[in-house]
């Protein structure tokens, strides 16, 4: 097996024991990138020289027998909406194509303190708005399992990089499913932590009440290790929680006896993909065999979640994206002779934003505008309460919920891009999680006959990530879906 094909915990061990150097691992990752990146397009920016320099520094620390973290020297890819000092942060948007971050996001600062090696920034839907990564202004990322299909989105580049062994670890962000859905479609592990678990400082804001950073990894242990490093309170994010951070590797227990698992009937609807349904139901049967208590439950407001989300997320986005006006950073329209400041703003934003971003700014502005606020924005906030109450009630009798992550496996590039509503409905199973602020994971649970990955979603109570990791780890110990590699 090549180094780049190993998991982060395997590599971390080898580096710690001095059996391989971080430089060797980093080189093997870049060798892989040089081979497959032309066909996959996971990255927007690669930082090979900086990565090798960083790797040699870690190797130096090991030679000097300095104390190092379990993931020291492991190469990691970062979604291009998180700031690394001195590196471009484009959000896959023309409006930020030359924006060089002047500081580190808190997650980056923490990973630097733990000596991880940054290899590059991954492609995404522009400003994280999309479910296929087709909304990138720069390139189309291909699903490593089938190059004609999408990798999911918006963290499609991070998921594709993990699936194709171009990176050992990756970070993504999840506003309505943007970590879990691409993880599902690319056959990797993706966790959206509880809202407030991970600092959002230095994450380019899309919808501030829903956004959360989380790991995309090759297995559950890697996910737990990365969570150990990025979780915790940050004074620079007033919505981050001062809540103790456990050692998440302690919850990797191969035992789920007496764990109460709820299966919401609204997530198994007529017309859903049969292969997805079968794989998820097989997984539930396996968990039952392993001792979990399975119970069918109901989340009656599920069908309203997509409508709630596309009003609230767009309203928040229309406000957050007001800052791109060509003054402090980013692109300024070069149309000659701006007669006024307002005209410059309008030209800059008209030129700089792509279709989906404009559509969402328009929808959000409309939902917040005088005369429509009560009918749309306030109404959606009220239904958000109902969606959240359903979930709170479910957790009175369940420890976690299990559902499919996505109603379908990956779909063809171009298939949904001209039909926004159809694309929005790809997020139907992931959105409620963000509306309720709870954590959720997607793990591989099977493949279709056409060899496309299928993902299982596990949801739990706020700050109970340990339950998710325990159930996911137990499932992983009894299956080998996560070990399959795409042929590229």
């Amino acid at each position, binding site marked *: 097996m090549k180094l780049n094909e190993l998991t982060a915990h395997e590599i971390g061990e080898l580096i710690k024991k001095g059996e391989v150097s971080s430089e060797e691992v980093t080189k093997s990752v870049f060798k892989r990138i040089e081979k497959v990146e032309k066909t996959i397009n996971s990255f927007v920016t690669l930082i090979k020289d900086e990565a090798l320099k960083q790797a040699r520094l870690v190797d130096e620390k090991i030679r000097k027998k300095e104390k190092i973290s379990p993931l020291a020297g492991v190469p990691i890819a970062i979604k291009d909406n998180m700031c690394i000092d001195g590196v471009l942060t484009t959000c896959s948007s023309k409006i930020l194509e*030359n924006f*060089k971050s*002047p*500081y580190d996001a808190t997650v980056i600062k923490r990973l630097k303190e733990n000596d991880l090696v940054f290899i590059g920034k991954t492609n995404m839907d522009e400003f994280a708005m999309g479910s296929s990564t087709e909304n990138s202004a720069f390139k189309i990322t291909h699903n490593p399992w089938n190059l004609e299909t999408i990798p999911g989105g918006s963290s499609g580049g991070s998921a594709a990089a993990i699936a194709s062994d171009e990176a050992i670890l990756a970070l993504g962000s999840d506003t309505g499913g943007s970590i879990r859905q691409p993880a599902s479609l690319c056959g990797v592990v993706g966790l959206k932590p509880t809202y*407030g678990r991970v600092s959002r400082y230095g994450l380019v804001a899309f919808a501030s*009440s829903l956004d959360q950073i989380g790991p995309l990894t090759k297995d559950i242990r890697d996910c737990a290790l990365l969570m150990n490093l990025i979780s915790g309170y940050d*004074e620079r994010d*007033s*919505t981050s*929680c001062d809540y103790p951070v456990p050692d998440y590797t302690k919850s990797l227990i191969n035992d789920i006896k007496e764990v109460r698992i709820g299966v919401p009937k609204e997530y198994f609807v007529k017309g859903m993909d049969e292969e997805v349904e079968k794989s998820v139901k097989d997984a539930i049967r396996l968990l039952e065999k392993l001792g979990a208590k399975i119970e069918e439950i109901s989340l009656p*407001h599920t*069908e*309203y979640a997509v*409508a*709630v989300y*596309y*009003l609230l997320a767009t309203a928040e986005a*229309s406000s957050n994206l*007001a800052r791109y*006006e*060509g*003054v*402090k*950073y*980013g*692109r*300024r329209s070069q149309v000659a002779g*701006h*007669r*006024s*400041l307002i*005209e*410059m703003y*309008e*030209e800059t*934003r*008209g*030129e700089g934003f792509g279709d989906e971003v*404009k*559509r969402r*700014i*328009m929808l959000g*502005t*409309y939902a917040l505008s005088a005369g429509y606020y009560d009918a749309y924005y*306030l*109404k*959606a*906030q*009220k*239904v*958000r*309460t*109902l969606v*959240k109450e359903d979930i709170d009630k479910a957790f009175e009798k369940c420890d976690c919920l299990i559902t499919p992550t996505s109603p379908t496996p990956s779909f063809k590039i171009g298939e949904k891009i001209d039909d*926004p*509503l159809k694309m*929005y409905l790809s997020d139907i199973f992931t959105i409620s999680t963000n*509306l*309720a602020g709870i954590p959720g994971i997607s793990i591989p649970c099977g493949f279709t006959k056409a060899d496309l990955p299928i993902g299982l979603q596990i949801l739990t109570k*706020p700050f109970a990530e340990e339950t998710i990791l325990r159930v996911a780890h137990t499932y992983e110990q009894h299956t080998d879906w996560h070990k399959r590699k795409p042929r590229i």
Partner: protein
Amino acid sequence: MSKITKKDVEYVAKLARLKLSEKEKEKFTKQLDQILKYVDKLNELDTKKVKPTSHVLPLKNVFREDKIKKSLEVEKTLENAPEKARGFFKVPKVIE
């Protein structure tokens, strides 16, 4: 019946400071109409007695001590500015 007209789209674009082409206006009118018709399903629910959720955490105001700390240096702040002059951001004329 349409939920939104081209005139509405032009008004909202103005509020959002977005310059749209004629083609974009036509397209967005159609697409936003479709989306607004879909979100209308929220009206199936009686929410008279429901309190809105703007945020999931029970956070009130989060205060910190009013201490002076180092901030980003002017030079670094201006590095990304499309136009600058004498330590300031430069913009087109604001007042006629």
